[in-house]
C-alpha cells in the first residue's frame, strides 16, 4: 500500500511490548491510521498524561503508556500505537495535575478518564444490564468503523415549513409489549415502525437524547411501586460523539453505530428526516459531589463554568454547566455536530436548554454568543435545522429573542401555553391565538414564522390526553413527594380528575385533543407532536416522567384500538396540513391583497364575518387564509377558514362570502362523532348552508373554499 512508504507510520518507541511513536495532534480522539491508532487529547493544565489500554471487558489494563514529553504539542498529547486490535480495544487516560478545587483544578491520576472525542462508549452495552460496580473504568472509550454503505443517501433538506415533527424516545416508542416488534426499545425496532410513521403523515422524527448516557445514574428504589427509578430520558450526557449502545439491539456486539446509521438511511428512504435532541448544557458528572468520568479530570476549568470559589455554576438545574463559550469547548461542540451531520446524515438538532449556550464563562448572557454564531454559519451544518429550547434553569428566557443569525428556530413555549389556556376556556386569549395561527409575528417579525416550532405537548409535561384529564400533576411515583415537575400546566380535566367511565367526559376529552391537533396543524410555523399523542397516550397525570422505565413512558399501542377516533383524526389532520401550502408559509402574512384575488392573505372573523371579537371576554375566533396568497402568492391553493370556539355553548359563525363559483366544504368539525369529524383531502362535503355554520361548544371547524 502507498501508505506503507510513509516514514511516520513506523514505531520509534517500545514499552511493555507495545510499539508506538509521536502522533498527529489532529483530529482529537482515537483515529485509525495505517498499522495503528492515533490518540490525541487536550488538557490545558495537566502536567502529565498516560494512555491506558484494555482488552474489551477486561478488569485490568494490558498496558499503560505515559506520553513522553516530546509527544506533547502545546496542550495536546498525541501518540500512534501500533498493532492494536481496534475492535477489541478499550482505552482511556490518566491525567496528572493539581487537585485544587478552589482554583478550579480536580486532577486525580488514580482515575481512568473517558476520551471526550470517543466515538463509542463501552460499559452500558445492554439497557439496564447491571454493571460491575467495582469496575475501575466504567465508561470505556472505544473505536468504531466510520465507514458505512450509505448508497445514495443524503440529508433530505426538506424545507422547515413543510415539516411535521414527531418527538420520540427510542426506548419508549417500542418497548411496550403491544408494539409487537422483534427487538423492542431499539433503533432496529423503530425501523419496523416506519410504515406506521408514514401512515401517520409525519416527516421528521426528533429523537430524545441518544448520546451515550447512564440509565443507572441516580437509580434508586421507587417509593411507590418498589421498582427501580432510572435515568430514562437521558438528559445527562456521558459522551457527545457516541450513540447510546443500550438503544441498539447490536449494542452488546459494539455495532450501535451501524444500527443507528441504518435507521437514518431507512427513514430517509421513506422521506422522514431525523433530528437529534442534543444536550450541551451540562454533563453526567454532576456537581462537586459527582463522579469524575471525563471532562472534570481532563480539564475541569476549561469544560465547566465555575464560581470564583471553584464550585459549579448550575444553570442547567442538574449540578454543572458546560462552558460552551470557551473556545476549546466551543470547538468540541462544533466538531461534534459536524460529525453527526456528516457521518450520521442527521438533518437537524434541537438544543436542550439552549439559552445556556449564549452565556459567557461567568454565566452572563452574551449579546453575540460565539458558539451560536459559529453554528449558524458553519458550512457543514449549513443545511441542518437548528432549533433552540430558548430558556434555561437559571432564569434566562429567550423565546422570541434568542440570538438567531437568520438560522435558529425555537421551541415556542408561549404558543404551548396560549393554546392550552384557550382550549381550557380562559378569557383574554384571542389576541394570542391570532398570533399562534400566524406563526407569532410579534415574536418573530424579522425571522418569519418558521422560527416558531409549535407544540402543545412534549416529553416534558403532560401528554395531550393528560392535558384534558388532569387539573394537577400526580408525580408521587417520582419519589419527591410530588414536588418535582411544573405546576403551570394550564390543563383542565373536563370534570373528573383522571380516568373515568363517564362517556360525556371522555367524549369531551377526545374532542379537546382534536381541537388541539387542529389548531396545531393549521398554525403557521412548524408543528411538533409528542409520540403517542396521536393515539391518546397517558402518563396518568405524571408531568415529569424522566425516571420511569415502565408504562408511564412506553407507548401503549393498544390505544390505537381504544382511541381509534383520535388516531384517525390525527393522521388526516397531518395530511390536511401537508395538502395545503397556504398553511405552510415561509414569510409572515401582510394583511393585504397583494395577489389581486380580492381578499387579503389573512383575515379575522368571529360570529360575524369580518368582525373578530378581540375583547377580553371573547372565546371565539375565525381565520380565513386566502389560497391565492399561498407561498407568498406563488402557488394557488384552496381558501381555508378555521373557526375556533372555546365557549361552552354552540354559536353560529357567519361565513365570509367566497368569489363566484366557489363554495365552502367541510373538512373538520370536532363536534361530530368519528367518521364525521374529519374528511379526507378532496372528499370534503359541500355545505348546504353557505352563509353560516353552527360551531359546537368547545369545538373547531375547518372549511375549505374551492
Amino acid at each position: 500500500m502507498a501508505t506503507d512508504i510513509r516514514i511516520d507510520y513506523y514505531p520509534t518507541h517500545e514499552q511493555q511490548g507495545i510499539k508506538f511513536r509521536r502522533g498527529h495532534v489532529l483530529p482529537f480522539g482515537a483515529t485509525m491510521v495505517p498499522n495503528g491508532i492515533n490518540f490525541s487529547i487536550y488538557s490545558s493544565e495537566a502536567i502529565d498524561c498516560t494512555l491506558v489500554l484494555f482488552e474489551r471487558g477486561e478488569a485490568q489494563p494490558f498496558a499503560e503508556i505515559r506520553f513522553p514529553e516530546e509527544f506533547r504539542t502545546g496542550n495536546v498529547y498525541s501518540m500512534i500505537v501500533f498493532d492494536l486490535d481496534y475492535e477489541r480495544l478499550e482505552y482511556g487516560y490518566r491525567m496528572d495535575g493539581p487537585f485544587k478545587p478552589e482554583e478550579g483544578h480536580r486532577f486525580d491520576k488514580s482515575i481512568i478518564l473517558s476520551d471526550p472525542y470517543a466515538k463509542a462508549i463501552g460499559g452500558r452495552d445492554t439497557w439496564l444490564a447491571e454493571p460491575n460496580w467495582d469496575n475501575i473504568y466504567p465508561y470505556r472509550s472505544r473505536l468504531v468503523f466510520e465507514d458505512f454503505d450509505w448508497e445514495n443517501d443524503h440529508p433530505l433538506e426538506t424545507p422547515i415549513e413543510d415539516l411535521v415533527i414527531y418527538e420520540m424516545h427510542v426506548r419508549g416508542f417500542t418497548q411496550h409489549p403491544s408494539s409487537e416488534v422483534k427487538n423492542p426499545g431499539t433503533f432496529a425496532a423503530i425501523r419496523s415502525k416506519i410504515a406506521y410513521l408514514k401512515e401517520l403523515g409525519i416527516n421528521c422524527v426528533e429523537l430524545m437524547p441518544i448520546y451515550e448516557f447512564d440509565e443507572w445514574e441516580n437509580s434508586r428504589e421507587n417509593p411507590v411501586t418498589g421498582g427501580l427509578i432510572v435515568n430514562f430520558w437521558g438528559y445527562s450526557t456521558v459522551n457527545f460523539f457516541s450513540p447510546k449502545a443500550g438503544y441498539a439491539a447490536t449494542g452488546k456486539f459494539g455495532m450501535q453505530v451501524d444500527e443507528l446509521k441504518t435507521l437514518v438511511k431507512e427513514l430517509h428512504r421513506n422521506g422522514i428526516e431525523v433530528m437529534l435532541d442534543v444536550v450541551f448544557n451540562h454533563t453526567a458528572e454532576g456537581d462537586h459531589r459527582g463522579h469524575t468520568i471525563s471532562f472534570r479530570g481532563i480539564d475541569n476549568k476549561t469544560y465547566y463554568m465555575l464560581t470564583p470559589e471553584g464550585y459549579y455554576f448550575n444553570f442547567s438545574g442538574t449540578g454543572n454547566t458546560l462552558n460552551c463559550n470557551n473556545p476549546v469547548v466551543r470547538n468540541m461542540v462544533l466538531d461534534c455536530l459536524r460529525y453527526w451531520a456528516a457521518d450520521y446524515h442527521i438533518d437537524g438538532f434541537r438544543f436542550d436548554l439552549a439559552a445556556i449556550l449564549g452565556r459567557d464563562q461567568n454565566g452572563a448572557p452574551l449579546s453575540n454568543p460565539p458558539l451560536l454564531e459559529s453554528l449558524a454559519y458553519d458550512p457543514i451544518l449549513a443545511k441542518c435545522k437548528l432549533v433552540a429550547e430558548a430558556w434555561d434553569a437559571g432564569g434566562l428566557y429567550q423565546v422570541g429573542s434568542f440570538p438567531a443569525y437568520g438560522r435558529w428556530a425555537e421551541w415556542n413555549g408561549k404558543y404551548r401555553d396560549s393554546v392550552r389556556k384557550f382550549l381550557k376556556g380562559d378569557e383574554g386569549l384571542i389576541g394570542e391565538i391570532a398570533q399562534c395561527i400566524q406563526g407569532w409575528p410579534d415574536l418573530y417579525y424579522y425571522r418569519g414564522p418558521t422560527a416558531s416550532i409549535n407544540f402543545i405537548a412534549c416529553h416534558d409535561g403532560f401528554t395531550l390526553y393528560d392535558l384534558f384529564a388532569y387539573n394537577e400533576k400526580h408525580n408521587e411515583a417520582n419519589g419527591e413527594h410530588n414536588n418535582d415537575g411544573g405546576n403551570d400546566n394550564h390543563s383542565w380535566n373536563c370534570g373528573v380528575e383522571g380516568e373515568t367511565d363517564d362517556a360525556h367526559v371522555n367524549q369531551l376529552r377526545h374532542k379537546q385533543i382534536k381541537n388541539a391537533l387542529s389548531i396545531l396543524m393549521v398554525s403557521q410555523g412548524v408543528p411538533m407532536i409528542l409520540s403517542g399523542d396521536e393515539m391518546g397516550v397517558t402518563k396518568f397525570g405524571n408531568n415529569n416522567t424522566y425516571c420511569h422505565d415502565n408504562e408511564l413512558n412506553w407507548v401503549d399501542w393498544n390505544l390505537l384500538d381504544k382511541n381509534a377516533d383520535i388516531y384517525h383524526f390525527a393522521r388526516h389532520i397531518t395530511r390536511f396540513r401537508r395538502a395545503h401550502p397556504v398553511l405552510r408559509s415561509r414569510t409572515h402574512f401582510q394583511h393585504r391583497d397583494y395577489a389581486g384575488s380580492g381578499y387579503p392573505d389573512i383575515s379575522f372573523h368571529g360570529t360575524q364575518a369580518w368582525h373578530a371579537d378581540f375583547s377580553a371576554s371573547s372565546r371565539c375566533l375565525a381565520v380565513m387564509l386566502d389560497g391565492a396568497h399561498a407561498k407568498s402568492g406563488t402557488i394557488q391553493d384552496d381558501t381555508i377558514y378555521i373557526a375556533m370556539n372555546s365557549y361552552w355553548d354552540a354559536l353560529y359563525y357567519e361565513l365570509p362570502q367566497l368569489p363566484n363559483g366557489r363554495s365552502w366544504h367541510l373538512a373538520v368539525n370536532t363536534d361530530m362523532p368519528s367518521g364525521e369529524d374529519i374528511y379526507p383531502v378532496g372528499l370534503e362535503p359541500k355545505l348546504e348552508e353557505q352563509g353560516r355554520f353552527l360551531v359546537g361548544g368547545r369545538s373547531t371547524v375547518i372549511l375549505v373554499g374551492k
Partner: protein
Amino acid sequence: MAFQIESVVEDKAARLTLHGELDSLSARVFQTEVEKIANQDIEALVLDLEDLNFMSSAGLRVLIYSKQKIGPKLAIYIVKPQELIVDTLEKTGLQHSVTIVDQYPA
C-alpha cells in the same frame, strides 16, 4: 474455534466456506480471499456460513467491500447462516444487500 476459510471458484461463482469467528483479525484474512477472486469473472459470491459462529462489525464490512470491489451486479448468497448471524444482518439492515438461502444453487 480459530477462523478458517476455504475458497473455490467454478461456474462464475466463488464459494467461500467460513468457520469459527469473523472478527477484526480474521476479517483481514476474509478480505484477502475476496481480493484474490475480485479480478476473476464471477457473478455470484457464495458464503457458506453454516460453521460461522460470530460476525463482528469488521466482518460485515467485508460483505459491503465485496460488493463494492467486485461490482454492484455481484449477487451475494449467504448459505445456512446461524441465527445469530441472521440476527446481526437484520439489525444492521444488511439483509437487504444479500440473499439468504439454505443451499446454493437453490
